[in-house]
């Protein structure tokens, strides 16, 4: 599966180039402007999360509709394992495609090496979570349009609970949810990279969201045959 995803991406050179250039255009325009850093960080967080979620859900729905996923599963391959491989492969490809954008953010925000040591794993975690969310929304969608809608709503809701649009009041359930949210490290690290928050990032920020992401990936593996539109086959 890994090989297939990579080969397919390499063959679709035009799409690969667009996937690099389009986010880069938006990121460069904002990062190099006088936009407030806190707003810039929110836009980048939303962009990265939606990039991962859409990039995972739409190809899965398309392959489900064409019957390709069903054909794969009929080879006897574990549906959860298949799904997990796709999630990891697409997350890795997203990281490559977004790398120039991350570089622009880091250079424009004057990020230090110690900040980048947290920013990069936070982005990896965010993309992994976004791709897992895309796989989950693909299971509910019956068309690409539905998938896009479900992915957007689910990602935006999780981003809201990650404190991307407003900081939750400490001690409330929203604050608890924020601490465990896989998109929180992504947002916090982008705040730091754009200079909207202090220069220091606590690596412990990654702990709980990493646990949640791993739990979601485990759930995807166990319930794989229900999550890719196979109706338990």
């Amino acid at each position, binding site marked *: 599966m890994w090989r297939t995803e990579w*080969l*397919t991406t390499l063959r679709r050179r035009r799409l690969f180039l667009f996937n690099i250039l389009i986010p880069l255009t938006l990121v460069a325009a904002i990062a190099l402007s006088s936009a407030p850093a806190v707003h810039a960080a929110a836009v980048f967080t939303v962009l990265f999360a939606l990039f991962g979620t859409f990039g995972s859900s739409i190809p899965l729905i398309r392959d489900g509709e064409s*019957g390709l996923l069903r054909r794969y599963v*009929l080879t006897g391959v*574990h549906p959860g394992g298949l799904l997990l491989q796709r999630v990891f492969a697409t997350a890795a490809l997203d990281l490559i495609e977004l790398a120039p954008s991350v570089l622009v953010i880091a250079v424009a925000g004057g990020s230090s090496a110690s900040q980048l040591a947290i920013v990069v794993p936070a982005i990896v975690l965010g993309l992994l979570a976004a791709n897992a969310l895309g796989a989950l929304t693909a299971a509910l969608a019956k068309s690409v349009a539905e998938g896009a809608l479900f992915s957007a709503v689910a990602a935006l809701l999780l981003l809201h609970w990650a404190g991307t649009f407003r900081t939750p009041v400490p001690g409330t359930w929203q604050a608890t949810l924020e601490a465990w949210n896989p998109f929180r490290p992504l947002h916090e690290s982008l705040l730091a990279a754009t200079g909207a928050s202090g220069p220091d990032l606590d690596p412990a920020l990654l702990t709980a969201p990493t646990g949640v992401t791993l739990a979601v990936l485990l759930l995807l593996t166990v319930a794989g045959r229900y999550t890719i539109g196979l*109706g338990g*086959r």
Partner: protein
Amino acid sequence: MFEAIELSFTYPSGRKGLRGVSLRGDPGDRVVVMGPNGSGKSTLLRLVSTEFPSHPGSLTLFGQARGPSPRDLRRRIGIVQDTPVHVDDLTGMENGLLFAELYGLPKDESASALEALFTSLGLDDALHVPTREYSYGMKKKLLIAQALVHDPDMLVLDEPALGLDPPSQEALLRILEERSEGGGCTLVATNEPALAQALATAVVLFHEGEIVAHGSPSELLAQVGGATRIEVHITATPAGLPATAPSLKELPADILSIQRLPGRIIAESGSGPDVLPQLVGAVLRAGLNIERIEIREPDLADVFALFTGQTLATRDEDA
């Protein structure tokens, strides 16, 4: 290899796909199922290939009851679905290697197995061409190669010859016969009588989810007799068509029966096409215009018509 006992299947809409079907395929068998659209052929294939989930009745595969997660059973089955589906950006070889990998084969082994299959199916020129450039027939050949790459114990093929040119159909027949000699079991759905007759060790005729006839091709053909069928297609004369067929009294004794259908007259001859001049003469004397004449030996489509009073579709998009 597979045994269905009183197997039924109902679609979510409430439509009955199968009604109490009992059927088995043993090592070396080539079981061909025939029937019009919606008769239950593809439903049976999807159940045997484990594509469809649980169902009333009993289905055993390789001596085991089908469980809720039949992964081990799936590895022993090769499937050709009616609609070709591939990763369009990959070449034929890359698609084949992907399936070999999914079946758990080592890459070097699978590459040589695929090359041999592509050669025997006449697809060797297109090994390294992206499948988006493949014709329908080429895609079908690739599906066949993917189904065979892991040398499965059982093959489940839905209209495998549809879109194949005659040499490729012959190659497919050869491959299936060789596999059968090696003890493999094949379950095929097709509505092509010639293919079914050439391929099958057993033919099963389906109608409305039920089996209406089951036997070897020769056993089934014996039921319609060995008479040559001569179809005389007629057009209306200015006076209109007579209500009855030409009288048998005017025809040679070798014509065993004659049947008048809208637009055609079907005669069964015990001495092949030798009776044609007399038959044509009788039709013309009856004041009919002849549009064209078809002469053919009886086939499995006639057997189906005998049992159901209906015709087989030549191209099936059965659900």
